[in-house]
């Protein structure tokens, strides 16, 4: 049986990335390279106000004093910032109506399974689509407008809601935070902005699709979500990229501001190109995501990470307000030569703050998956509670699973509990499924899905199905 299983697992590695096409659309792009001029050009291209250019310049000068972080459990080829194209956009960036949209681009969305046209008709999800560096279409804006909700591209937000952006941009993730946040602040070109006014429950899922298309480009999107008092929003993010044999850099920053008694649910299905079965190509995914919770606010991060050659990502919550709640639910699947170092930080500052961490790692092929997390209970965080569960599942003998939790408590009335396990799919489970007539491939699929269930069920309906499919594809050959 062991050899049979090995065979099945080998088949996994033969699986092809199904979003690996390139769209032939004309685009306008800069020469590769990063200097003050690049930043000025980006800013000029976006017609940005001067404060924005100042902010970028400050970030750039901070970046020059920094070095890329090396503490993660990752082997990374050095990244040459001078070889990256910092601006690339479909020639006609924004469309007044869908009829104007480049048919090639529409085809792209159809291939991705996002039909903007369809989406416009059926109520449910409002989408902002970002290709390479710029937002190309945002749907449902009018419906949302009536409720006072702002959902638009970051560049529009800088233009039309300058004060709001100025107030919150960099308030959660300052450009000094780390190397990649500095890089992002200097060169980000677009992303989504979302503002939910006081007392409003956003009636639909807000969603952004990110796509890297052009060769040699980096994607540096910036997302900012501000939820005012007593408001609620659920936000989804999906990402894909073409297959290329070079490593593309993706360095995004996401900031969430959850004011008093508000709730932000942020879900990600990350499926950047992971590289081929020999470990060639794939996206380098270095993302800084962080949210701040004021009194009684709640931020919930859910992520399904199946793509990217390298994932470096720690969606975090600063639980500043009393009674605030932070959650992190993650499934990270690595295969072939993928490497993932992901986890979360829960910083408890307020009283009665609660956090929950559920992390499920699945490693196959020659990949390595690491959970890295920090739970910090500060002196002021009376009666804080944390529960963490970090499990790893190994498929095959050539992968590695690692767990690096950091737990720091300075308050005796708090309770922190951490559990972790590492195991393989048990032969008993497999045998049981087979005895009931389920073939091995499907059995492994069932078991992996069951193993990830705690996280999958946290996803909004629209995404749950997609995520489940993605898990199957990532481990295709054995997962049915």
């Amino acid at each position: 049986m062991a050899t049979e299983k090995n065979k099945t697992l080998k088949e996994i590695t033969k699986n092809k990335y199904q979003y690996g096409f390139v769209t032939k659309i004309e685009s306008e792009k800069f020469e590769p390279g990063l200097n003050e001029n690049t930043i000025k050009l980006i800013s000029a291209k976006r017609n940005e106000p001067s404060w924005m250019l100042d902010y970028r310049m400050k970030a750039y000068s901070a970046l020059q004093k920094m070095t890329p972080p090396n503490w993660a459990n990752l082997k990374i080829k050095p990244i040459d910032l001078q070889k990256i194209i910092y601006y690339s956009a479909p020639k006609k960036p924004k469309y007044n109506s869908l009829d104007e949209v480049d048919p090639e681009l529409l085809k792209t969305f159809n291939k991705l399974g996002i039909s903007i046209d369809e989406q416009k008709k059926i109520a449910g999800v409002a989408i902002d689509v970002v290709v390479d560096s710029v937002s190309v279409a945002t749907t449902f804006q009018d419906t949302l407008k009536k409720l006072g909700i702002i959902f638009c591209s970051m560049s529009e937000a800088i233009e039309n809601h300058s004060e709001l952006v100025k107030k919150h941009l960099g308030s959660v993730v300052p450009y000094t935070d780390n190397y990649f946040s500095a890089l992002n602040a200097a060169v980000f070109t677009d992303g989504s902005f979302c503002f939910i006014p006081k007392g409003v429950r956003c009636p639909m899922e807000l969603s952004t699709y990110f796509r890297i298309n052009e060769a040699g480009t980096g994607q540096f999107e910036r997302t900012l979500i501000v939820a005012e008092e007593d408001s609620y929003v659920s936000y989804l993010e999906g990402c894909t990229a073409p297959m290329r044999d070079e490593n593309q850099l993706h360095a995004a920053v996401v900031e969430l501001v959850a004011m008093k008694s508000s709730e932000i649910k942020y879900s990600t299905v990350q499926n950047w190109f992971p590289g081929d079965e020999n470990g060639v190509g794939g996206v380098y995914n270095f993302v800084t995501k962080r949210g701040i919770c004021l009194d009684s606010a709640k931020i919930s991060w859910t992520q399904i990470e199946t793509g990217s050659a390298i994932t470096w990502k720690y969606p975090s919550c600063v639980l500043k307000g009393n009674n605030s709640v932070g959650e992190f639910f993650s499934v990270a699947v690595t295969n072939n030569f993928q490497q993932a170092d992901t986890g979360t930080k829960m910083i408890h500052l307020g009283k009665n703050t609660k956090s929950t961490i559920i992390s499920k790692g699945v490693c196959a092929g020659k990949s390595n998956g690491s959970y890295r997390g920090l739970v910090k209970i500060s002196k002021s965080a009376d009666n804080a509670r944390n529960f963490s569960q970090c499990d790893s599942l190994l498929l095959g003998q050539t992968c590695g699973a690692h767990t690096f939790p950091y737990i720091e408590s300075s308050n005796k009335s708090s309770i922190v509990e951490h559990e972790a396990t590492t195991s393989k799919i048990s032969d008993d489970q497999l045998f049981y499924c087979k005895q009931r007539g389920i073939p091995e491939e499907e059995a492994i699929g069932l078991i992996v899905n069951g193993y990830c269930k705690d996280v999958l069920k946290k996803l909004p309906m629209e995404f749950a199905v997609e995520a489940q499919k993605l898990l199957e594809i990532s481990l295709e050959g054995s997962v049915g």
Partner: protein
Amino acid sequence: MTGYKKNLAPQFNVEKESSFITDFLPSIKNEDWNYTNIKKFIPDSIAVQPFNIGTNEEQLKKLISKKVDKLPEKNLVFFMDGVFQEELSKLPTGIKIKKLTNSENKQNALYLNCLGKGFNTINNDTYEGFSSFLKNTKLVELNAHLTDSPYMITVTDAYNCDGHLKIIHGFSNQNAFFNQNRLLCLIEENTRVLIYEEIINFGKGDSAFNMVSEFVCLEGSSLDFFTTQNDLTNSSLINSVFCVQQKNSSSNFHFFSKKGKLIRNNILVDLLDTRSNSNVLGTSLMESSDHLDNFIIISHLVEGCKSNQFFKSVYDENSSGAFCGKIYVEKGAQQTEAFQQNNNLMISKSANVNAKPQLEIFADDVVCSHGCTIGAIDEDMLFYLRSRGIKKKEAVQLLIGAFLNELISNIENPEIKKEVSELFLNNTNV
């Protein structure tokens, strides 16, 4: 991917004066030391204990009697300032002590690194000893510079003793020195030994101790090693224990930490051959502003081994502490069973606890888990006790005792159990 790198242990190649100590002290930026700022505990100006203090036996006995009523009458190995005291020791049959010669002492960091080479490991090419740790913790290298040739204790198969072998590391410590101590212990094939180690500071407080012990467990041997760390008021201890194990061998370590300005234990165990197992346990009760840092790495290098880490700590007053435990499972080390548990009880508002329980696993057919908790006394338990008429203060004491007793109650040797119980459970009735 970290772990065992393809290069050997750093060579000890410098001969410097004692003023260079700070070069060897790890900074908190060092991942292995991020919860203990060693520079806070060991001042730049600290003087190093000179080799071989010329004390005669008369003076020695006088010094000892000031602190210890009576030394054990049998099974005793007594060191004073790192020098074996044959007159004071009571060596049982089967225990041999030899001072390694200067030529034998020319080796690099650890004796284990060269002894380890002879071991029959399946993945011979990946085994690199403890080098990645030694690179980060140069205190071991410092110890090698500052100590004379170490003693090697051999537990031969002629040793057959029901009770325990007591090892006392005494320090005369006239000038609040930075004391160094080094020991190598070889347990021969199919031999059992129970060692109970104690550090006694006969001299001044405000001093520091840098101890390095190496254990080699040959095929079929069994080592039980208990150590109490309680006589370190105002002093700092860095205690590094390295253990390598052959086929079918077992090791059980239990660290009892109670009193010391700083107690840092580095415990590294390499399971080199199949069916070996290791248990590393710790029980501690920290008070005043004392700081405890337990750092453990158990490496499963071949298939079919078992390990267990279990540390229980109580933090009272302004004490602080850290637990950093790692289970490392090498490629191909299938059928590994490795567990780790760390429970911390915070009694006081100003206590501070950090934990870093880690798993690094490169084999799929393994059962590994860790659990870690930090919290105060369980309110439900407290209420249960109080509802039976036990006063709050007593109930708290009882629960602390129960927490600490979990590991102590499993000690088989009655004398050690009694001593340790007195140390931790003084008046609590558990």
